């Protein structure tokens, strides 16, 4: 049962990952990326990490995908299959990708990792365990992370802000 779900998820994830890079329209690429993220969330659910899966959906589909699609609509790229994408570069890219795949795959296949098995009886970590970890040992990291996020949002706002509009709007308010 799980295996068929796994194969289906794999097809969806890898297929839409390829589509997100190769689709003709950038918007479809964005949608495909969101579907790929959903597929990854599906893997998380299979791996007994529902909290992370929901977090993934909320962040990637609810925020990142919206941001990306919004940017795609905003920049209105004329034609996304750019002329500068030469054949040589493409072949090199495919070779590089395949090379990495073969190399890492063969290393993985010959390593002892293949002998590792999931422990069926291992305890499943629920939200409490994660929360405890976040708030005790990793609490400084959490704070730093919060600061990072805040500064990133502020930075993005500062970057995308338009000065001319701000100046004009202030007197009317």
């Amino acid at each position, binding site marked *: 049962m799980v295996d068929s779900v796994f194969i289906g998820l794999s097809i969806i994830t890898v297929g839409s990952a390829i589509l997100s890079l190769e689709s003709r329209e950038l*918007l479809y690429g964005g*949608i495909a990326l969101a579907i790929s993220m959903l597929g990854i969330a599906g893997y998380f659910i299979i791996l007994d990490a*529902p909290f992370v899966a929901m977090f993934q959906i*909320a962040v990637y589909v609810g925020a990142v995908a919206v941001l990306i*699609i*919004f940017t795609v609509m905003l920049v209105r790229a004329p034609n996304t299959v750019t002329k500068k994408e030469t054949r040589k570069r493409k072949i090199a890219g495919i070779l590089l990708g395949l090379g990495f795949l073969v190399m890492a795959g063969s290393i993985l296949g010959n390593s002892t990792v293949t002998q590792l098995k999931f422990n069926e009886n291992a305890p499943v970590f629920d939200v409490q365990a994660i929360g405890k970890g976040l708030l005790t040992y990793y609490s400084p990291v959490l704070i730093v992370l919060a600061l990072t996020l805040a500064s990133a949002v502020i930075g993005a706002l500062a970057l995308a802000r338009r000065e001319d509009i701000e100046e004009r709007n202030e007197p009317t308010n």
Partner: protein
Amino acid sequence: MGSLTPDFRFGNFVGSIVWLVFVVLALVTLLILPIIFFVLFYVPLPEVDGEVLTPYLFFSMMVDPSRTLPVVQFFIHTDLFRAAIFPGFGFAALIAAATIFIERKLLAKMQLRVGPLYAGKVEGIFQLLADGLKLLTKEIIVPSGSDKPIFWLAPIMFVSTAAAVVALIPVADGWVVADVSVGLIAAFAILGFFPLIALLFSWSSNSKYPFIGGLRALHQMIAFEIPFFLSALPVVILSSSLNLTEIARSQNLFMNIFILPINAFVFFISSLAELERIPFDLPEAESEIVAGWLTETTGMLYGLIQLGSYLKLYALAGLFVVLFLGGWSGPQIFPPELIPGAHDSNLPLLQMLALDGLYNPVTVNSIFWFMIKTIIVILLMLIIRGINPRIRIDILLHTGWYKLIVLTFINLFIVLMLIYGGVIGPGGLISIR
């Protein structure tokens, strides 16, 4: 002074009715019965009277009605039934339909009108059916230059996403389609799909007004998502669980709304904004941007989005009830047996009428109280629509980003104070469990 059209012939009229009957009969024998048989071969069937029911024996229920009870009992506990009929889509769609009708009648009453009146003799109760049929037969106009796949898929996505939220809402103990351990987060994660759908649909219809409407929908939903999350946070602290069933069960002593009134208010306001209902129906403000992101919808596409938004209404009302109004808890008012003494008697008909083996007083009571509370919340949402004008986008954003977020924090700190002061929470004066 109505009169019939000049080319009316009584013979034609009778002929058309006869033809209709014939067509229906032919369809039933040639299509519907084979399909039922075909389905029955693949559906696992229960054991009745000591033998496994086969598709051929299935129709013996027609002769012996008492055999239906075990079958019904079997089907009621299958996942398919739960997802499609009772706590899931069918039930929610029924409530959505009832909500649309009640909304129209209530608003009409408030506005000194009569509302739907003619369809279905009694106060127009079949108006929705008539509207649905009309929408079904309407031509679907796809604007030229639109992005066709997204344009067709988005309404369907809208309905299915709304149904996914509905699937998370428990109506009684154990009566929920998907009992996820992180149900609350799941609900919020799925609600995050809606801005994406609205944005994609508005973009795909290749028109200016929908695009402005889509942007407004995006702004509005993102601005209200944060107070929406935050207002549910103290509930999680109080019940120390993310599972919706657990949250509802933890309120058997008192409802959360007594301790979290401000958060309940914020949640209610945010869910109104999330639902795009008046006073927050800016994405569909017809006097500014025609119909917002729904401008180019026609026929059943519009119907689907309407259905989806009312499903969402039910889902959010249910969520409100689960989070703040104690879910299904309430005094037991249903008797232990539907007809006293039916269980012991051996009359099959009496047993069937008393729904012996099916009737569970606790569950029925839970569903009853849940429904009562949900209906009250829905009515409140409907009345709000009657008395309010639409507000402006900048006021809305200001409300969402500044006022509501601050309000949620006030109540969050109160709850924390109570917990650390040892009044509530684990080991407190008032034990929740």
